[in-house]
């Protein structure tokens, strides 16, 4: 990731597809692991861990959406609804049957995958904007169902309190311990996606995205792969919803509304469609940027304004700056932050002899 090759010496397909293109990449991963598993939790204040926790959850959701939108080319604005399916499945199982998280979490994912396949069925006949509207319908139907079926939502408030996840008697009830809980699932999701996209299934997804008729002609069952993409993507969304549920200690209806689907779409578009690193960068960007802008403005603004005056200015300017930066980054590099990062790398690959 952070290394420079001296040239391309790959002679086989398997070398080209390897997770670690060079031995040094292993060291990069080892150093990243050391930083995130040891150094960060030991040195960083709980507050910053809480932000990282939000980013980890967002990464899982963004990866899922990117598999569907970025890799398979099927637009979905029902992602938040799939999260809520996962969240309520896990919450009901955890509260009614008192099941531990290592059962409720995959169960939430699988339930979301099943619903995802149903919502994804229109993708077999329609594409593009039409599919977007069909998935929007899915979002609204799921929202309505959760709101109106007490058996799912657990009563008029449509929210179910769950206990903190625990493993062998250890309860993850602080930001510090939840950090490891969420880090684990974020890493699993990243590794799983990296492997998925270089497998037969991942290649089939890309083929469907690039030209589905051509894909069908070369023998890819596009019905199967489109639905599989919806299932896998919804599985990630469901897991993301379960993580939200355990992180907040509650499954809440208002937490998974349409606007959240749009937020996740924004993440993968800014990060870069069809790339794992892009999903991660997008999740970081969308979660972190408002916080960074605010902290920056509070420090600069306190020179000129009182707290009360500043509050209005910050809120407005923050939204403006956030939108402005998104436009800026997309104009600089329409293919997202991932492409930007690759451009920087390829620039330095030949630096200083760039001509």
């Amino acid at each position: 990731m952070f290394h420079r090759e001296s040239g391309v010496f790959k002679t086989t397909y398997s070398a080209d597809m390897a997770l670690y293109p060079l031995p040094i990449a292993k060291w990069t991963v080892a150093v990243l692991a050391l930083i995130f598993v040891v150094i960060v939790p030991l040195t960083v204040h709980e507050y910053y861990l809480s932000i990282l926790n939000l980013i980890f959850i967002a990464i899982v959701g963004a990866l899922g959406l990117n598999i569907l939108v970025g890799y398979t080319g099927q637009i979905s604005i029902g992602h938040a609804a799939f999260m809520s399916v996962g969240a309520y499945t896990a919450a009901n199982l955890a509260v009614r049957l008192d099941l531990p998280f290592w059962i409720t979490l995959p169960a939430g994912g699988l339930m979301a995958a099943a619903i995802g396949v149903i919502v994804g069925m229109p993708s077999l006949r329609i594409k593009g904007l039409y599919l977007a509207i069909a998935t929007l319908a899915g979002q609204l139907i799921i929202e309505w169902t959760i709101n109106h079926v007490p058996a799912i939502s657990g009563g008029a408030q449509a929210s179910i309190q769950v206990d903190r996840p625990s493993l062998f008697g250890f309860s993850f009830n602080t930001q510090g311990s939840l950090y490891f809980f969420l880090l684990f699932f974020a890493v699993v999701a990243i590794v799983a996606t990296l492997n998925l996209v270089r497998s037969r299934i991942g290649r089939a997804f890309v083929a469907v995205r690039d030209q589905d008729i051509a894909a069908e002609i070369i023998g890819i069952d596009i019905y199967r792969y489109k639905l599989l993409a919806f299932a896998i993507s919804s599985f990630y969304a469901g897991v993301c919803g379960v993580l939200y549920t355990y992180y907040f200690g509650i499954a809440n209806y208002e937490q998974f509304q349409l606007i959240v689907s749009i937020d996740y779409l924004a993440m993968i578009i800014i990060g870069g469609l069809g790339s794992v690193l892009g999903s991660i960068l997008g999740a970081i960007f969308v979660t972190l940027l408002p916080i960074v802008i605010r902290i920056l403005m509070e420090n600069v603004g306190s020179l000129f304004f009182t707290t009360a005056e500043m509050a209005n200015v910050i809120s407005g300017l923050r939204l403006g700056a956030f939108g402005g930066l998104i436009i800026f980054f997309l104009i600089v590099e329409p293919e997202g932050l991932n492409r930007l990062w690759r451009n920087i790398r390829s620039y330095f690959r030949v630096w200083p002899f760039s001509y």
Partner: protein
Amino acid sequence: MTRFVRSWLGIAAATATLAVDGGQAFAQKELVFGLQCDRTGVTATVGVNLCPGYHDYIALVNSKGGVEGFKIKVLEVDNEYKVPPAMEAHERFKKEGAVLEGLFGTASTMALTKKLEEDKILGTSPGFGTAAAADGKRFPYTFPIAASYWSQAGAAVAFAKEKLGGTLKSKKIAYLFFDNPAGKEPMPIFEELAKSEGFELRTFAVPAPGLEMGAQILDITSRFKPDFIITHLFGRSPSVSIKELKGKGYSLSKVVAFVWGSAEADIIAAGGMGVAEGYNGIQFAGVGKDFQVIKDIEAMYKAQGKPVPKEMDSTVYYNRGVFMAALHVEAARNAIKAKNGAAPTSEEVKKGMEQVKGFTLGGLVPPMEITPTDHEGGGWVQIWTVKGGKLVKSKDWFQGFRPVILKHLEAEAKKS
């Protein structure tokens, strides 16, 4: 040294100076309050007027020497009515050592309930969250401190009963509500009261975003023809309901709105005070400028030579901000007094909040009594009515069907 480097060094130096200043300020006796607000999200219309009220009251307290010698520093975070930023805001307040925090938004109140309990920091949620949070034993660190939707439902029915001549036997009441969890929450109270008071209840749901309710209003006014209408709407939808009901010729004096549909802004958006003559709204804080504390805030601005902020004209929301700040300050005051002037911890401030009693701020705050078991403070409300172009108090602080509400709270407590 290039100019670029020099300018950065300059900024670094300025930051360092600030940091030192901050350090010195902290040596003073200071309490930190956290305030979540929504100035840009779906409830921004509330936040932009409510939060300035909060800041102004704190500034007033600070200008008079603070609370028991402690200056109060307010940290505000705009959570955009979203849940993840609310969690970030809470962690930020905790890092800065906040002794209490004001929550904003039902979803974020619910999402933070567990965290507040784990971190032992009290959060207030006037008009947000669940009615069950009034139960201090079940939710020790969540304080609604104002009438919940259940209490408002009781009050609305009590008001209807009074307006319809003291009895509701064989009368018809329509409940027009926003189709979300908050809108459905008061239903059990209405259903029980419908049985015990003998009125016919019919409910009419308005789907989000609530800007189109022609069908429901037509159904109410032409088919059901109720004697009274209770509305529970949010955002822009209260103004739509006023316009539609007026358009169908229904007398607005037989309409009562819950707390988020009874502000000046809703009435003005519906076409102005003149249009909404007779419209009733439930309030959990005093309305208008006729309070000593409001005059003191105005005087504070005049003394500083600044214009009085325009947010003050939106008295319903502004006063709710003052109401919140005043209760926060009282909780801190009780806690400091209990420690004989030493800085209280967040747990002690929570105990201080549970001792708030007989604090009315000249009528802006109801005669509430917050106890370790009752975090709602009794569920007191007022009714204000549009009369002659302005809001006039038509019913002073009262509790509607309190025994019924308490019974439901008990039943809810047994469930868990």
